[in-house]
């Protein structure tokens, strides 16, 4: 068991013939993931390192049984790629592409949600479970099977922290990099119930950043609905007070959004908050029940 991905996950890579698509399809396979198809319009009939390429997601799903998508398509075409995958019956789409306009993402999110599909991202590292599969771009070297779940808004900082957990002799159940864009398909609050239900997760590490109110919303959820221990870290304590997004933005996030408000909210919800990334493994090891180290 793991969260959202498993040994039954079959990935179609949209944009597989591009450089990033090719490189990361290879890395996903090296992780042990079934990458069954690629899609690039106009390239049907070719292969990328033995993976068959199709013109459309529908064709890829019909011929290979793909049930998850990893999207590397450039930003101007990413909306179309996502809508296509949802219409082809894909119910888990990881969007790695960065710089997708949030107006596009609003349409993508509500379209997918109305059809029971989940988006992770955009502009995100994706999801990986050492005993399941990887859909995305998190480096394979940071993983080791274990019982620590990780959710994060960051990219490389997630790798840093997941790697720190491994180097401490601990391992991960599932790690999700949600992406830090203004509109994300899966937020902390969306991901928390998945880890609450996951029998393979004993403790959750939550990695946040300054800006927005996602961490405060997560704290509220943890307080009322999350029973497992949480270790958190918020990046950006030292940042000078950021530029605000105009006055309307300020009244939406009234009194929230700084490192101070996020740390306070998470501590009030019972989370242990690390001051620096390298404090996380010790905090985790101090809480994790004996016998659930790996």
């Amino acid at each position, binding site marked *: 068991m793991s969260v959202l991905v498993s040994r039954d996950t079959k990935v179609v890579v949209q944009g597989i013939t591009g450089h990033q698509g090719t490189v990361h399809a290879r890395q996903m396979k090296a992780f042990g993931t079934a990458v069954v198809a690629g899609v690039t319009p106009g390239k049907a009939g070719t292969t990328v390192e033995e993976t068959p390429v199709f013109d459309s997601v529908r064709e890829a799903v019909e011929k290979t049984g793909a049930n998850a998508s990893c999207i590397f398509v450039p930003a101007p075409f990413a909306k179309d790629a996502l809508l296509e995958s949802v219409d082809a019956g894909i119910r888990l789409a990881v969007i790695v592409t960065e710089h997708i306009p949030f107006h596009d993402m*609003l349409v993508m999110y509500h379209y997918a949600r109305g059809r029971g599909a989940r988006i992770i991202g955009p502009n995100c590292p994706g999801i990986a479970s050492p005993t399941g599969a990887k859909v995305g771009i998190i480096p394979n070297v940071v993983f080791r099977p274990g019982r620590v779940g990780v959710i994060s808004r960051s990219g490389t900082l997630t790798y840093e922290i997941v790697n720190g957990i491994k180097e401490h002799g601990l391992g991960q159940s599932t790690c999700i990099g949600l992406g830090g864009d203004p509109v994300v398909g899966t937020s902390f609050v969306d991901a928390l119930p998945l880890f609450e239900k996951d029998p393979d997760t004993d403790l959750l590490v939550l990695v946040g950043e300054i800006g927005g109110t996602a961490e405060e919303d997560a704290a509220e959820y943890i307080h009322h609905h999350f029973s497992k221990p949480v270790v958190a870290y918020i990046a950006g304590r*030292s940042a000078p007070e950021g530029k605000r997004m105009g006055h309307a933005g300020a009244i939406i996030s009234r009194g929230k959004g700084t490192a101070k408000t996020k740390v306070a909210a998470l501590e009030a919800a019972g989370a242990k908050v690390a001051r620096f990334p390298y404090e996380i493994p010790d905090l985790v090891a101090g809480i994790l029940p004996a016998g659930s180290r790996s």
Partner: protein
Amino acid sequence: MVKLAEWRGKDVFRKYGVPLPRGRVARSPQEAEALTRDGSVPLPCVVKAQVLAGGRGKGGAVKFANSPAEARSAAEAILGLEFKGERVKELLLEEKLALSKELYVSLTLDRTLRLPVLIVSARGGVEIESVEDAAIDRQPVDPFPGLTGYQKRRAAGALGLSGGAAKSLDRLLEALWKLFNGEDAELVEINPLALVGDGLVALDAKVIIEDDAAFRHPEYAEIRDDRTPLEEVAREKDIAFVQLDGNIGVIANGAGLTMATLDVLQEFGGRPGVFLDLGGTDDPKKVTEAFLLMARAQPQAVFLNIFGGVTRCDTVARGLVEAMRQVPEAERFPLVARIRGNNEAEGVEILRAAGITSIPSLKESAQAVVAAAGGRR
């Protein structure tokens, strides 16, 4: 993001049919006088500095004029002012209207709801942050049906408008909704929105366009936020580069890791100066360019902290070694490197061959760079 000056925002408003006062832009006192003398701008008029910062009225950047001579002297007083760090180069002259109410209207994104939100308040004309929650009405707007009739009626109710004024609001909100979507705006804000007779007129305009939508809006490409020359070079090379006032240069990849690096440096008494986010790259040339850019900012020490994912450690190492070859002796700086992740062993070896040691621990590498920059502040 591209913040539009008021007059540019009003040009966009005009395109969508948002009612505006009659007005013109002036760039000299002579021009201000001429525009009011020939009736292009009816008198009495208001003369407003075209700067991006708020609080212009209180800050002496808005004046009134009853005659062409007064328009000229108002322009003389405002042009060239330094307002919250911005030099005033342009003025907007507009007819002064007899208004009966000042209202507030905006459309922006609510990240938590993942929906646009329409915000209105009958207490316009002041900073909206100072208005209490009870006096502000918010309605999320679903992008699929868009702004609905009942939502516009509720907004009219919240603003205390009825009859012709409510009809005017209906048309105005329709226009703002189309603008918000059509221009890929992050924010459209009118404060104040004036009630003149039973019609509404936008006295101010704040429009922010989303950067990520630049590919479908080439018309905004010319407008730049205030950036230092080095920040401008970095932007052209697609490197996120921010200048603070410390003495340690930081090169990292990814916003979260960059912020975490700054947090750790500060903990050990370091003062981050320039920080530079490589983002994801597997081109050693980009790494070299980043270092050369960093050298131009003249830091006392540089901390390279990379976790290799898309950006591989060997790529970074090659780019770094090449940069060190190109930086003239006189401009060299102490360097502390920490490269982890994909292709770490290869990267560390390349650095070792060039005489650079990579310190694997974040804590120890941060302490080393603070010491190299001259210790605690």
